[in-house]
């Protein structure tokens, strides 16, 4: 009986819509992580960037009473924060992982510190009257039964995540910048020898990832919730990195992987009503990611052996041809 209800809950349009909402703060930073990953600069600081933006957005929107100023300020703060990472990594030659860890510590501490100064509370910003971004109904689509509920009536970040995944795909595979970026990540020395400005491309990629992560952060504090909570990112920056790998380092793959993580989160809430411990359900995406790493590695191994085999056969054929001639 109970199980029936849960099943019904899972296959309802409302539930699928909620997966979209839960996944969005993963999709956006994951796209950022993908871009830096492909540029060969692993961005551990996604978590910190998200926190900074989430905080700035709430504070600025509360003090100006203008949502869009809050969003803009949040984006600016996130991009600036990622610029610190880029500067330390590319100009002061700090290890990017350590710089990322340092910035995460700084964001965690800094946001709580400032929150305490502004509100006198270390937990959340409920005393600040901050804004929420509007929810948008898409005309026509919202009237389609079932799909209308899934696709329409979300906050703007949900739509932004879909559009930005598409744009990221275009940028990475159909623009000169994207091709250069992937070349830099693949082999920086070769890229340098071709005259590609490695450092400035890496710098730009980190800034773009900062932009995307900041949208993810703003999504948390100005749409998902309407306030800032300490440590409200709760590891999403790291899950986003995992989504990059689970998605095979491709934009739509990353998008789907992030949705899988979101779905597991949503499912574990549903299972809470049954007697299945939520921990087991929440564990699934992490286990899947490790399995995906394994499968990815095995596939690459197989590809390499295949390529070597083909190469050997080709060379052998050449030698034979020469001998015959």
């Amino acid at each position, binding site marked *: 009986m109970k199980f029936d209800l849960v099943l019904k809950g899972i296959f309802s349009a409302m539930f699928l819509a909620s997966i979209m909402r839960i996944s969005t703060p993963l999709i956006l930073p994951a796209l950022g992580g993908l871009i830096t990953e492909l540029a060969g600069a*692993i961005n*551990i600081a996604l978590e910190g960037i998200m926190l900074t933006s989430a905080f700035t957005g709430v504070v600025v929107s509360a003090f100006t009473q203008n949502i869009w100023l809050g969003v803009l300020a949040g984006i600016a703060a996130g991009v600036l924060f990622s610029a610190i990472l880029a500067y*330390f990594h590319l*100009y*002061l*030659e*700090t*290890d990017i*992982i*350590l*710089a990322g*860890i*340092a*910035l*995460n*510590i*700084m964001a*965690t*501490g*800094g946001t*709580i*510190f400032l929150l*305490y*100064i502004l509100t006198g509370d*270390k937990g959340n910003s409920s005393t600040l009257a901050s804004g929420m971004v509007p929810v948008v109904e898409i005309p026509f689509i919202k009237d389609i039964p079932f799909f209308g509920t899934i696709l329409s009536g979300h906050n703007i970040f949900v739509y932004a995540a879909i559009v930005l995944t598409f744009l990221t795909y275009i940028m990475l595979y159909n623009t000169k910048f994207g091709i250069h970026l992937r070349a830099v990540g693949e082999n920086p020395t070769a890229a340098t020898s071709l005259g590609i400005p490695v450092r400035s491309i890496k710098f730009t990629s980190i800034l773009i990832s900062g932009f995307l992560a900041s949208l993810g952060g703003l999504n948390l504090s100005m749409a998902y919730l309407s306030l800032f909570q300490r440590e409200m990112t709760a*590891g999403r920056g*790291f*899950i986003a*990195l*995992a989504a990059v*790998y689970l998605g095979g380092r491709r934009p739509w793959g990353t998008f789907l992987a992030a949705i899988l993580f979101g779905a597991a989160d949503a499912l574990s809430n549903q299972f809470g009503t049954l007697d299945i*411990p939520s*921990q*087991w359900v*929440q*564990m699934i995406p*992490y*286990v899947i*990611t*490790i399995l995906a*790493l*394994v499968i*990815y*590695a*095995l596939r*690459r*191994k197989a590809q390499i052996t295949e390529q070597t085999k083909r190469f050997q056969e080709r060379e052998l054929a050449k030698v034979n041809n020469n001998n015959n001639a």
Partner: protein
Amino acid sequence: MRKFFSNPAVREGLRVLIAVSSALLLGFIVTLFVSEDPLGAYKAFLLGPVSKFNRFGDWIEESITLIFVGLSVAIAFKANLFSMGTEGQLLLGALVSGSIALFVPLPAILRIPLAIIAAMVAGFIWGWIPGYLKAYLDANEIVSTLMLNAIALKLYDYFLIFHIKPPDAGYNSSDFFPKEGTLMSFIPNLPFLKGVYTLFSDKTNITIMLYILIIAVIAAYYLIYRTPFGYKLRMIGANIKFARYGGINTKRTIILVFAISGIFGGLAGAHLTMGIHTKLIANISVGMGFEGIVVSILARNNPLLIPFTGLAYGYLRAGANVMERASDMSREMVFVIQALIILFVTAERFLPTIQKRIEMRKENNTHMEKLAPSDGGSHEV
């Protein structure tokens, strides 16, 4: 004087000193703006840990954890393997040792060693997994260890909430460990040490883990610098292709590096449960694994330096707690100072002018020395 400054160790020390003091200075400037009693707040922060005996204890206890996790990270990083897995190893070490301390009906003399060894084994196994994935499948160790941390956290929560905590308790923590499952004070309870013993055991939780820690530091140093395994580890860290070419079984070594690094993570977990908290609690480690990375990196991954960076880092954290209690400043300000220290110390080109000038001077000197004998030689001919 010139010679003194051209010594790389002195130069490095100077660099760290400048980095730390500029971060502290920035923190002070912030305090000036925010606090109503900036001097008092900063005094509490800088002198807090040594102002009272129990605070001194807090500092040392915190540092013991930090040094253990630092050692764990150092072993992996020395081999250029960016393992982030210490957090998960710590959690499972805590879970296993805590369960034994609670439930295994043995006398203390057997129960405590069993719990500690079990924590080490748990860490070893949890480290073995990413090691295997890295060695045989070349799976990115950053991602695999982060995932394993998340899994370990879920396992920890699951067992704590569903099996360990008292069923009718409204909070997520276990009962306090019985006396047989708690680590004893590091001062033996002997008649002639009575006064010192009561002082330390009443005011602090410094336990026999301190001795295990000292052994661990020496063991880690020996392992890395004085054994064939350590040589292989460092070779892999320097150049893995060259190591493989030189006939080192890199796969086996990589797995062992991860697994041994896990032993120290497990020990940190045992210290947290059986030494400090004496029960299993939710959120027992919030980012301790990452703090270990910082401690290790500041010590340049050298096990003999890790106690110093661990103590320094622990001092900052303990000082932050004192400051929060004694003034209107929140302890999170110190996080920002910590982050600045990490950024400044690890920036290879931080203070490049000082370094460059010294290097140039040094180069000139050696150049002159090189020239001198060769000139003399040409005269003889």
